């Protein structure tokens, strides 16, 4: 609550332009007096984007696909960490929200394919619709969630997460049950040349989505809305006394987070041009949770760490089984399970030892190295 106290006075001016901002202790990384937040984030996004594009030009297809997967997960983790870390609402249904986005993309693209409509605008349109449809789903869950707290909300969203396979079977005409849906694979546009690596193009698409999400989230976190999110997390009564509509704030947080998850799920579907309920099991929701916990709850930089780890750790078992010669039975059992075990162990250890996650640990470290600047709370 300390970080939000100066905002208690109603401020009619737009928050970003407010001179009050200079007086705020400010969230970590936000050097208040250094000009416009939006501009700074734009520059950062362009720099990061350029760096990744340069990187993808050097990488072979499989690695580019992994970059694309990291970007797809980043869309989800960025919105998820804002919901859990900054607003204090624990959702376990983000795997299901990703599925909503993925199925929306698949259905939209299939619809256009059946009507023999083609065009480069179909991809952005389907991704936009994925975010929109998932935002509506998030609104429905969020409306219920605004009345629920802690374990109750976790239980309800857990029930949502178990719903995905059931729904695809109930509406099997639409979702094609366990088999899932296929749609035309995304191909690089013609002006890039006939021999352009398709995976590189996918990585660029995913990168654009991730940068857009990160840019929006970074500005949102620093905005008036972002501060009211934290106020609600820290003390609902105090937030209400400060004039924040708690329920509306929580629902809005859920909607924003769901839209990000929908976009990420849509991009994730585009990468393989298929969707199936098996990909969006309960484990996916738990993986996402692990990603944001390890990165540091509420930290967008932590969301990047989490997304990278999520992709990197999933390749760990095959690496181990390739490096060491194991009996085939054991290798087969390790294949799907080792990553799970490592994820679970990391989740527990991080929660017990460093609840701030990687980003929190890094923050404490830099604060210790620079004695002039005390470690700020996120």
């Amino acid at each position, binding site marked *: 609550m300390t970080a939000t106290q100066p905002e208690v006075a109603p401020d009619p001016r737009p928050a970003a332009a407010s001179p009050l901002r200079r007086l705020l202790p400010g969230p970590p990384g936000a050097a208040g007096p250094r000009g416009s937040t939006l501009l700074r984030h734009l520059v950062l996004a362009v720099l990061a984007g350029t760096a990744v594009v340069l990187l993808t030009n050097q990488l072979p297809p499989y690695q580019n696909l992994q970059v694309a997967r990291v970007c797809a997960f980043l869309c989800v983790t960025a919105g998820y960490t804002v919901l*859990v870390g900054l607003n*204090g609402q*624990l959702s*376990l249904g983000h795997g299901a929200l990703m599925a909503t986005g993925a199925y929306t993309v698949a259905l939209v693209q299939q619809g256009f394919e059946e009507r023999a409509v083609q065009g480069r605008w179909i991809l952005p349109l389907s991704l936009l619709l994925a975010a929109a449809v998932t935002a509506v789903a998030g609104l429905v869950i969020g409306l*219920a969630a605004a*009345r*629920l*707290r*802690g*374990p*109750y909300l*976790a*239980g*309800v969203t*857990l*029930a*949502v997460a*178990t*719903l995905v396979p*059931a*729904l695809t*079977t*109930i509406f099997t005409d639409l979702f094609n049950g366990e088999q899932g849906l296929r749609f035309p694979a995304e191909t690089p546009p013609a002006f890039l040349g006939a021999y352009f690596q398709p995976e590189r193009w996918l990585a660029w698409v995913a990168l654009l989505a991730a940068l857009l999400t990160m840019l929006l989230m970074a500005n949102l976190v620093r905005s008036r809305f972002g501060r009211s999110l934290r106020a609600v997390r820290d003390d*609902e*009564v105090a937030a209400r006394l400060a004039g924040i509509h*708690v329920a509306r704030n929580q629902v809005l947080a859920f909607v924003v987070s769901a839209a990000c998850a929908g976009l990420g799920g849509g991009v994730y579907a585009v990468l393989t041009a298929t969707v199936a309920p098996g990909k969006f099991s*309960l*484990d996916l929701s*738990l993986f996402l*949770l*692990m990603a944001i*916990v390890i990165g540091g709850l509420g930290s967008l930089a932590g969301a990047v760490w989490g997304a990278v780890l999520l992709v990197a750790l999933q390749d760990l078992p095959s690496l181990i089984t390739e490096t060491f010669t194991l009996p085939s*039975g*054991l290798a087969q*059992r*390790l294949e*799907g*399970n*080792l*990553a*799970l*075990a490592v*994820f*679970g*162990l*990391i*989740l*527990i250890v991080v*929660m*017990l030892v460093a*609840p701030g996650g990687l980003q929190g640990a890094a923050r404490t470290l830099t604060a210790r190295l620079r004695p002039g600047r005390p470690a700020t709370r996120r």
Partner: protein
Amino acid sequence: MDRFLFLTFDGLSTGAVYAAFALALVLIWRAARLVNFAQGAMAVATAYVGYAVVSVTGSYWLGLGAAVLAGLALGALVERVLMRFVGHANPLNDVIVALGLVLLIQAVLGIVFGNEYRPAAAPFDTDALTVGGIAAMSPYDLWVLGAVLVVVALLGLLFTRTPIGLRMRASAFAPEVSRLLGVNVGRMLTVGWALAAAVGALAGMLVVPTGLGLHPHAMDLVFVVAFTAAVVGGLDSPAGAVVGGLLVGLILSYVTGYLGPDTTPLAVLVLLLAVLLVRPGGLFSSVRARHV
């Protein structure tokens, strides 16, 4: 009408299992004010132990005993080694650690036993007896119902008639005062976790033979249903958990029977939301479940 009766008996039998599961959740909620999201995974782990003993010795009863003992040990272990050290600054921390435990337990089970479904034999006939031309309960259903009722009665006696039950209730109700009066509150917490995990292990052993099969993810949906049952009854009330379990079992049995098995998760979600939005404290709770 026959179908309705059949579904009713079936619902009572599965409801008894949900009741035992919900009871395990309520025991931990009362002792430590947290919902143990790892309850399902812990029950699966103990069921694996139980059926490993069954396959070695050939005796279901030895397996059941082993599972319950494994539950006691696992519950105490989880509390002593893990939950005790979770920071309570943020109420989400318990849930996140428990979910990490879910991933870990399921993965270890998958590595040790494999991810495939294993059939689990029931100790009694699972075909329904016909009474007066109507298919009623199977002997196995009767055993499930009886076992759960006996456990509930024993727990009731433990909490109301024994010194250790009194101490457990006291340390849950007023930890500081109990500590001043010489109750070892930490040990009571461990005992609470052990008891809850043992009840969960029993529920797991009872539910696995009913067509569920033994599988690292066998309890995922069962846990959600049990959570619903506990919420229906009110997380604070052991009697509510039993009634909630039976009620949820009946409702799900009718939904599954008349609308098809795929609708179960949807029905669970609707039921859970309905109860939480209309009566957040549960149907039988007089205490406010949340303070805003």
